[in-house]
């Protein structure tokens, strides 16, 4: 059987001439290998680029602006269900637009004026910088995940609240089942008791508290029908993305890692435009199916299969570096992203709580992450895993060292820890050296 055709396109090579302005708007894009032949990809980037205009328009229409951060559960779907709010997920929108793609650095350092350490995680600093600079207009409400999130980020929101920003703290339990180890000894992964009834009840109450706040702020009731409509959008997007991830099992890998990562991260808040985002990822799914049909791809068929994990990632060049070294990322953890479907029939708040608690915890106890990484590595037959640490994120190297040992022990595959900084003009040589050595080592293991 002949090998599939490998086509690797940079943004500059594939961007349609009529969209050349996109590169002026987002100069960092030029540094990435990202296939802009895909209409779905262009739509995603256009949604990102147009977000300041969309936010301004929403304001003119009388809608309120919500900046959410550190939350991957039900809060954003609930907010998106109300016509009274325009919702942005700061970690993604701020970093993707201003940091990663536009290459702006100033808003990272804004927070230093308020006592936030220079060494702190750039994502957290970006959250603060976005609010201080009102990049999408002064927010009417900040929604900050706390508890099972990041303590540094929570503190930053406390500072912002002290500065006069109305802030809602979304309480997320660190351990969803306090007796996890005791009750799950010897259980199959499918039968694990991931959360207790008390925690579920607490989560539903929390979502109810948030919904009530939004209704009070806007004077508009958020009905079950409104919530179900949003849930359907989430399910549409998650289904399309899951299908894309499934299709990436094809050889050669039909879609690059940058594109795959983008859609997963943006799925958490549907880019503030549920219908537009669903249309974009469904278009991309159809295009990927055609690529698979043509047996084309972005990397050689014998590429080393990698699970990519860690939190968070600012330098998207690392995905290109991994592919350049001869590996393809198939399993994913972090981002953060949940892709399991939400029940459309149940009480919506209960369905959102069950969906969140039943999936793996992108924040929180390491055991859940380990289980997720092992599961994804098995599903995609991965030969190694890479855990990335963003400079300044204090907890991820600690998590990484635990995960490295546990995943190596459970699967017998090596786990590499990489450390990335803010994106520069060129990919980091230190990171390249590590990835190349890792891929070479995994290839050598094939011969064992």
């Amino acid at each position, binding site marked *: 059987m002949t090998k599939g055709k490998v086509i690797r396109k940079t943004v500059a090579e594939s961007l349609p001439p009529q969209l050349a302005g996109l590169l002026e708007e987002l100069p960092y894009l030029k540094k990435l290998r990202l296939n802009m032949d895909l209409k779905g990809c262009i739509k995603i980037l256009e949604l990102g680029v147009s977000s300041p205009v969309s936010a301004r328009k929403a304001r003119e229409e009388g809608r309120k602006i919500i900046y959410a951060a550190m939350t991957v559960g039900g809060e954003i779907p609930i907010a998106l269900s109300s016509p009274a709010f325009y919702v942005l997920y700061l970690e993604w929108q701020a970093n993707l637009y201003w940091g990663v793609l536009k290459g702006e650095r100033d808003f990272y350092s804004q927070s230093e004026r308020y006592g936030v350490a220079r060494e702190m995680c750039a994502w957290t600093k970006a959250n603060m910088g976005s609010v201080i600079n009102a990049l999408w207009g002064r927010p009417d409400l900040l929604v900050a995940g706390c508890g099972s999130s990041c303590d540094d980020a929570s503190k930053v929101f406390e500072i912002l609240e002290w500065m006069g920003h109305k802030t809602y703290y979304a309480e997320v339990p660190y351990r969803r089942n306090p007796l996890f180890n005791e009750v799950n000894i010897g259980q199959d992964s499918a039968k694990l008791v991931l959360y207790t009834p008390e925690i579920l009840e607490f989560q539903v109450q929390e979502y109810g508290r948030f919904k009530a706040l939004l209704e009070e702020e806007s004077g508009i009731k958020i009905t079950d029908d409104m919530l179900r409509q949003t849930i359907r959008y989430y399910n549409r997007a998650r289904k399309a993305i899951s299908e894309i991830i499934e299709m990436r099992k094809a050889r050669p890998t039909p879609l690059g890692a940058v594109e795959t990562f983008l859609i997963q991260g943006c799925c958490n808040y549907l880019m503030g435009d549920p219908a537009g985002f669903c249309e974009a990822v469904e278009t991309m799914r159809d295009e990927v199916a055609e690529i698979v049909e043509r047996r084309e791809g972005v990397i050689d068929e014998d590429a080393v299969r990698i699970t990519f994990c860690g939190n968070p990632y600012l330098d998207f060049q690392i995905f290109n570096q991994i592919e350049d070294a001869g590996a393809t990322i198939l399993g994913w953890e972090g981002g953060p992203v949940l892709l399991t479907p939400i029940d459309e029939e149940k009480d919506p708040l209960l369905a959102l709580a069950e969906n969140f608690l039943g999936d793996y915890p992108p924040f929180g106890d390491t055991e859940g992450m380990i289980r997720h990484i092992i599961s994804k590595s098995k599903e995609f037959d991965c030969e190694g895993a890479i855990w990335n640490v963003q400079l300044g994120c204090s907890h991820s190297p600690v998590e990484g060292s635990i995960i490295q040992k546990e995943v190596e022990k459970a699967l017998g595959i090596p786990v590499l820890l990489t450390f990335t900084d803010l994106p520069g003009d060129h990919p980091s040589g*230190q990171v390249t050296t590590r990835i190349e050595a890792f891929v070479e*080592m995994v290839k*050598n293991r094939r011969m*064992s």
Partner: protein
Amino acid sequence: MAIAAGVDVGNRSTKVVVLNDKKEIIGSSLIMSLDEGKVMAEKAMEEAIKKAGIIREEIDYIISTGDGKNEVSWANENATDFSCHSATAYHYFPTARNVIDLGAENCRISRLDAKGRIEKFALNDKCASGTGGFLETVADMMEMGVSNIGSFSLQFTREITLNAMCAVFAESEIVTEIHRATPKADILWGVNIAVALKVSSYVNRIGLIPDVVMTGGVAQNPGILESLKKKLSIDIVVPPDPQMAGAFGAALLALQKRGNEK
């Protein structure tokens, strides 16, 4: 007769080794990296083939390595420094399990299996202490040649402790010791111990298993070698001409590749 070459475009110097099919060195060169990587590789190759008495077309396979490996467009392929230094270590010492490669700006540690394949590796983060570049700076501060500081340091009479693990801060500590009129040999031995501590922390990440081989330019420094032996409590062996280990290993891999392709 097959001929293979390895090209190591390092941060400080570019090295080329040409081997015949008996794994004998028939030509080699080492020039300081003062220009673009591709220019230096070209010059080093010309010098090596001149010494070998062959023309470029007689070389069957070329592998490049080092930080500038991608600049060598005429190489058949490239390989990481880890693989090349490990190939050299395994060639000279088939019982090698740990390879410590200390170059101008990098400290790379590999753990090998019984067949010489890399099982695990570690390298320095954004930190220069424990590398040749740091030792060059120290030599300048002592107004000595870098090739002399190792043997001179072995004349130490007292073990001083340099607390700073950062190369920049270590420099200020060294200045303080100079002002205190601490003997040069004692200061240099203190530097050796600081480097050895740093390197042993990388070794401990992947596990210390004998036999331990040291390669790279810093392996020519007897002071560093002795301090590492002391800190790791283990004997360390050094292959001939350790500075050429990257290029020699690349040539070995090229020869192997050539053999596989036939």
